[in-house]
């Protein structure tokens, strides 16, 4: 460490990089070594502040870092080598980008003088990653490393967060070339000023509109979780007596067990949430982006609604749906200002109208109510999620992969807290769930971490069971095994006369033996009555990773489901019913 009395310490580029990470408060780096990053790995070896987690495939490193960021709010850090190391990280970078997750990805690069020569393991990572990063940078001089690391974290974590790639040619980290090390305290960029608080006039207008609303709805997205504004959101919703719907990315932003919560909205949203949206006179969108899995056909979207939209990213406002009252700002200070103004200006809510609105909502709640056929002899995936919710007292970190199991988890695990539901919403990355669970478990070893997955998704990163063994990452894997790529099959059932083109998972491994081969515990559940004892045993094994291979009804579909090309409230409610 340096002090004012001493000269700055002399460090190599590699050592500066690691020291900068330590000064940034980074505890873990997830990665995989290779030629271009050997100097950096050697510098890592010679200190103990920053610990390295060796994954089995670079994609898993990115998902671990990503999930850590989703759970903690701080940027996750990835270290990979040039060429294939970097390209293997691409899916994970894109996953983080689509969901605005702060992440710093350090990629090795070939020696500066070889760049452009098609050298061994050379790839233009700046070029490849450009469309899927918030920013990327290359190190040109070793002495710039501390500044560039600070800049990477600053950009990744501020404003609308996102991944930042730092490309480091090998000759920037040569051990014998040392430079004075000083880590900048803060960074200012003339071209980047991310801290918008929202225009007070617009905020006032929004509040007036909400107070006058007869059929309002609060539509809260991942921005509330990223912006750590759940408390403010909850308080405001209660004061204004607003029904609240969360997006897939926003689950937990408002407590699911609260009576004002009307469920998730969108393609597989609840009947009541989609009806409320469609019939609303004021939609108060907070940190959400009106994406296509929410709006259904934009031309038919919520025809009578005045739209208030808070977002830190102006490009998200009026992108797909025009906002009548746009507010560009960080969600937290904007909501705080709204609460403040609400206290000063005692506007009256239209209690009569709201009473009628809630009556209507109650009727809608009774139409579908998240029902599924629980009498069937086959174990239902929804019942499994409900049982997992019970066994974890609704307090687990739940990660998921992508497909039917993801939607069942989103619908039936009632999230009461933010940062607990960790899934790839924007990119829809199969293979995300297991490494995500690992990233969370590493940082929250005492928390229950559950990965809800399917036999398709889990095989996309199943090699990480080995990493779990090495680091004692005792997550619980709930493999909803229906022998099909369930969501693909559902669409083939609905749109292709059940022609199951390549959606059947033939030749599945024996997952129990596979888990055991990696040194874990495997439990198979094939009958409904086996579920409870299996979960009992799994969650009692605190110091074991347990792989629950649960055979569920292969014919089950996810409902409700919006009818493509329709309005928000046009839905299939079961295989035989539609609105």
């Amino acid at each position, binding site marked *: 460490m340096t002090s004012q009395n001493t000269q700055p310490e002399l460090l190599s580029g590699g050592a500066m990089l690691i020291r900068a990470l330590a000064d940034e408060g980074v505890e873990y780096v997830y990665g995989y070594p290779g030629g271009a990053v050997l100097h950096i790995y050697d510098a890592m070896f010679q200190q103990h502040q920053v610990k390295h987690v060796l994954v089995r495939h670079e994609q898993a490193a990115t998902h671990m870092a990503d999930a850590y960021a989703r759970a903690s709010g701080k940027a996750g850090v990835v270290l990979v080598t040039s060429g294939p190391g970097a390209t293997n990280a691409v899916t994970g970078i894109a996953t983080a980008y689509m969901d605005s997750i702060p992440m710093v990805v350090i990629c090795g690069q070939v020696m500066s003088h070889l760049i452009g020569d098609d050298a061994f393991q050379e790839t233009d990572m700046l*070029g490849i990653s*450009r*469309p899927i990063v918030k920013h990327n940078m*290359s190190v040109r001089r070793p002495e710039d490393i501390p500044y560039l690391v600070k800049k990477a974290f600053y*950009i990744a974590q501020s404003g609308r967060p996102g991944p930042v790639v730092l490309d480091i040619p090998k000759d920037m980290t040569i051990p014998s070339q040392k430079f004075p090390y000083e880590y900048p305290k803060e960074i200012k*960029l003339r*071209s980047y000023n991310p801290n918008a608080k929202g225009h007070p006039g617009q905020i006032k207008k929004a509040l007036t509109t909400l107070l006058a609303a007869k059929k309002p709805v609060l539509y809260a997205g991942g921005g509330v979780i990223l912006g750590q504004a759940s408390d403010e959101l909850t308080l405001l919703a209660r004061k204004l007596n607003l029904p609240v719907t969360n997006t897939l990315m926003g689950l937990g932003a408002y407590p699911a067990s609260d009576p004002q919560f009307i469920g998730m909205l969108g393609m597989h949203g609840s009947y009541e949430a989609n009806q409320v949206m469609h019939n609303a006179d004021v939609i108060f969108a907070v940190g959400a982006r009106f994406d296509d899995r929410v709006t259904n056909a934009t031309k038919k979207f919520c025809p009578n609604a005045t739209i208030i939209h808070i977002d830190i*990213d*102006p*490009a998200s406002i009026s992108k797909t749906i025009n906002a009548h009252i746009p507010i560009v700002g960080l969600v937290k200070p904007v909501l705080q200002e709204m609460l403040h103004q609400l206290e000063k200006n005692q506007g009256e809510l239209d209690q009569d109208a709201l009473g009628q609105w809630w009556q209507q909502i109650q009727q809608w709640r009774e139409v579908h109510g998240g029902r599924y056929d629980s009498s069937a002899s086959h174990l239902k995936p929804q019942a499994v999620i409900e049982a997992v919710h019970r066994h974890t007292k609704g307090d687990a970190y739940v990660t998921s992969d992508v497909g039917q199991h993801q939607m069942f988890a989103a619908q039936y695990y009632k999230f009461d807290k933010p940062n607990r539901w960790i899934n790839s919403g924007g990119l829809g990355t199969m293979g995300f769930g297991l490494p995500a669970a690992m990233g969370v478990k590493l940082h929250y070893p005492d928390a229950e971490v559950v990965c809800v997955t399917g036999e398709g998704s889990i095989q996309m990163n199943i090699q990480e069971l080995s990493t779990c063994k090495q680091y004692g990452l005792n997550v619980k894997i709930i493999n909803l095994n229906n022998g099909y790529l369930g969501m693909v099959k559902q669409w083939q059932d609905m749109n292709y006369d059940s022609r199951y083109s390549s959606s059947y998972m033939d030749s599945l491994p024996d997952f129990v033996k596979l888990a055991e081969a990696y040194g874990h515990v495997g439990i198979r559940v094939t009958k409904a009555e086996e579920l409870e004892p299996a979960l009992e045993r799994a969650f009692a094994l605190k110091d074991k990773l347990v792989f629950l291979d649960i055979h569920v009804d292969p014919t089950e579909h996810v409902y409700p489901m919006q009818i493509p090309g329709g309005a928000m409230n046009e839905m299939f409610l079961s295989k035989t019913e539609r609105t």
Partner: protein
Amino acid sequence: MRHILSVLLENESGALARVVGLFAQRGYNIDSLTVAATEDPTISRLTLVTRGDDQVIEQITKQLHKLIEVVKLADLSESAHIERELMMVKVKTTAEQREEVKRCADIFRGQIIDITANTYTIQVVGTSDKLEAFIEALSGIQILETVRSGVSGISRGERTLSL
């Protein structure tokens, strides 16, 4: 609608690629693009001509703003502005055509900047429309090649795009 966007950009490697990449990724058009350093060598100024309805142009400007290296930008076509483009045209000229080409260049306030026994190279500066009109006026003359700089633009009056 045609719009002229003026962008002040950090003069760093990769910054231009980011701007061009944005247009490619999101399916926006680029009619022309010019870029060079300003009087402050750390800043480049980029002028880009694009087309789209109001919503598209709004998205383009917002997305450009999001790029970390974009310092400032303006849609010049929103207010009074001056635009210029430079074109060099090399034409094949027979002895009897030379006078006509010269006259045509004079009418368009062009200059003949290079001559060989068989060719004239003419420089014309003006709006894109004027340059196109000049090409049309050369009908009957064999054009060997044309080079256009792309549009540069600046606001009229006191208004500036600067740091």
